């Protein structure tokens, strides 16, 4: 516990990052799960580790929590390396995917657990437990057992149970997986507001990009044990740093193009400046394309499939050998194109396209 106290005392410098992961690598046998991952998180920031299963996001979370030890690198909390600190002495609080509430203890027993283990005096325990339950609006539930609570309430107990210990970093492992789809949306907003209100520094793990876009101040997209890009949600979506990120987040069209004199010419004839050379892949978001009557431009194709998704219309267009996705707002005045129509495609804003080297 002394280490945890030392670490809390050292946190006076608000500008320094609370958590710094430096070149962390983790192997299981000969299999490398994390390859030299680095990320820093500042006070009160919510960062999401996003990636498909097996990308290493949960491994990184478990290394920060101390369940697993990385082979290389440092994990600094308030400037202290925590890699040698045993799991039960780290100033981090984990909210598990299953919540892992103790089924044999009441809500009060669950929230008081950490304080009891630390030998905090009885009167202080009841005061701090009451405060913690207050902050997650669960006063009056003290004597219930976890099995008597809804999924959302269980999640709030799991949060109260760690925040009562005032951890420096909150770690949340896919906390919405156990909830049904309808509840998820509202719980995401509520949880983000709660964490912000408490001023906690948090790391989230998820495979759900919508969840990441909702919850995060910054998103770290991971793939194959590496962090591909760390940036705010807008930037991740609009200026993905690599082709993988562009493909993973949202829908995207990749079109091979040639570079000539520092410029890429798009299939519709417009051009964009680039630093790449030779052959490149240009990523165009479906909503950055417009379908027009045939003959209006050089990029011609045929509507293969058309569907209405609420306020949007999605087209799949066959243009040469490529299949291009286009998404348009549904408006009364524009005639929706039908399957089999011959049309032309046009890029709405060439500057909004991103360009990657062709592999």
């Amino acid at each position, binding site marked *: *516990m002394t280490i945890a106290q030392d670490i809390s005392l050292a946190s006076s410098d608000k500008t320094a990052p609370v958590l710094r992961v430096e070149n962390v690598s983790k192997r299981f046998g000969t299999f490398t799960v994390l390859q030299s991952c680095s990320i820093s998180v500042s006070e009160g920031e919510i960062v999401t580790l996003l990636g498909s299963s097996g990308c290493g996001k949960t491994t990184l979370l478990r290394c920060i*929590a*101390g*369940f697993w030890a990385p082979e290389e690198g440092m994990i600094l909390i308030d400037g202290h390396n925590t890699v040698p600190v045993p*799991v*039960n*002495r*780290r100033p*981090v*609080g*984990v909210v*598990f*995917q*299953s919540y*892992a*509430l*103790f*089924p*044999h203890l009441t809500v009060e027993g669950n929230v008081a*657990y*950490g304080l009891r*283990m*630390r030998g905090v005096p009885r009167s202080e325990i009841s005061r701090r437990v009451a405060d913690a339950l207050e902050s997650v609006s669960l006063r009056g539930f003290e004597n219930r057992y976890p099995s008597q609570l809804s999924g959302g309430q269980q999640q709030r107990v799991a949060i109260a*149970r*760690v925040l009562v*210990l005032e951890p420096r970093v909150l770690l949340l492992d896919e906390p919405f997986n156990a909830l049904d789809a309808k509840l998820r949306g509202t719980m995401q907003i509520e949880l983000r507001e709660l964490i912000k209100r408490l001023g906690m520094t948090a790391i989230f793990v998820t495979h759900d990009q919508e969840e990441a876009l909702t919850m995060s101040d910054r998103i770290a997209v991971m793939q194959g044990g590496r962090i591909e890009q760390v940036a705010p949600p807008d930037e991740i979506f609009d200026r993905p740093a690599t082709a993988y990120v562009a493909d993973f987040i949202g829908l995207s069209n990749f079109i091979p193009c040639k570079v000539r004199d520092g410029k890429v010419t798009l299939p519709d004839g417009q051009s964009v400046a680039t630093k790449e050379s030779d052959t490149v892949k240009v990523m165009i978001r479906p909503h950055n394309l417009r379908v027009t009557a045939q003959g209006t431009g050089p990029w011609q194709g045929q509507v293969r499939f058309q569907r209405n998704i609420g306020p949007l219309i999605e087209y799949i267009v066959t243009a040469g050998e490529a299949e291009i996705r286009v998404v348009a707002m549904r408006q009364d005045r524009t005639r929706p194109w039908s399957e089999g129509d011959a049309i032309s495609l046009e890029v709405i804003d060439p500057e909004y396209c991103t360009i990657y080297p062709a592999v």
Partner: protein
Amino acid sequence: MKFPDRSALGDMLGTGAIVGMGLFALFLLVAPSIIVLIISFDTRAFVSFPPQGFTFDWYLRVFEQRVLVEAMLNSLQVGITVTLLCIIMGVPTALVCVRGQFRGTTALSIFVLVPHMVPGIVLGVAVLFAAAAIGISPSIGLQSISITVFVLAVMVRTLMSRLQRMDPALEEAAANLGASPFQTLRTVTFPLLMPAILAGAVFTFIEGFDNISVAIFTHGFRDRPLPVELLALVQTTNTPLVAAVSGVQIVLAIIALIVVAASIGLEGVNE
């Protein structure tokens, strides 16, 4: 519909057959105990069915016979010792088999099963000879140890199935909240294992109390357990006294089940 058609008739016959088989199985399970209980109240001095009259005499006689009371106390002592040994050895073994992070945990969990697969008589003879070879003579202690070896598997298997269904995140959560490994064991793992320990304890106690195949070789010759004494009694007498002794055992087993069911619920026993 006045006449059921062929398929409905077939369904009814099928359902009837299954219910009939179930009732027959239940009859086979329960009838012997009920017949023994009925005979134990017979007023005549020999075993015969149907009984005549009703008396508690034989039960009083059971407790008047010093040999039988001592045999009961011996069996009680063995039952308790076996249960305690199984808990003390079974909990760590199950923890290692399920949570162990090294090679050989599967081998160990199968190895624990082996003595239970061996016929009790073989195990009894083996323990008797092995003990003789190192100069230990049969006694209540040896009998307890031999039965413990025989039924440890039941305890370990019961605990293992509970542990396997326990969310490993619970123990990680305890550690994350500041509990040392020992505190985690005491405050999380052990309380959650308690129903399985109790359920296992019922079986090990009953086995310790009335096992005969192993006990017949390893019991102390002056400290005869109840099943051995009962066998001797059946061979020499033909009075409902034997039935009364069995009656006492049946009541004891029912009490053990009720105690556990009351403390952890019937579903806990089912596990």
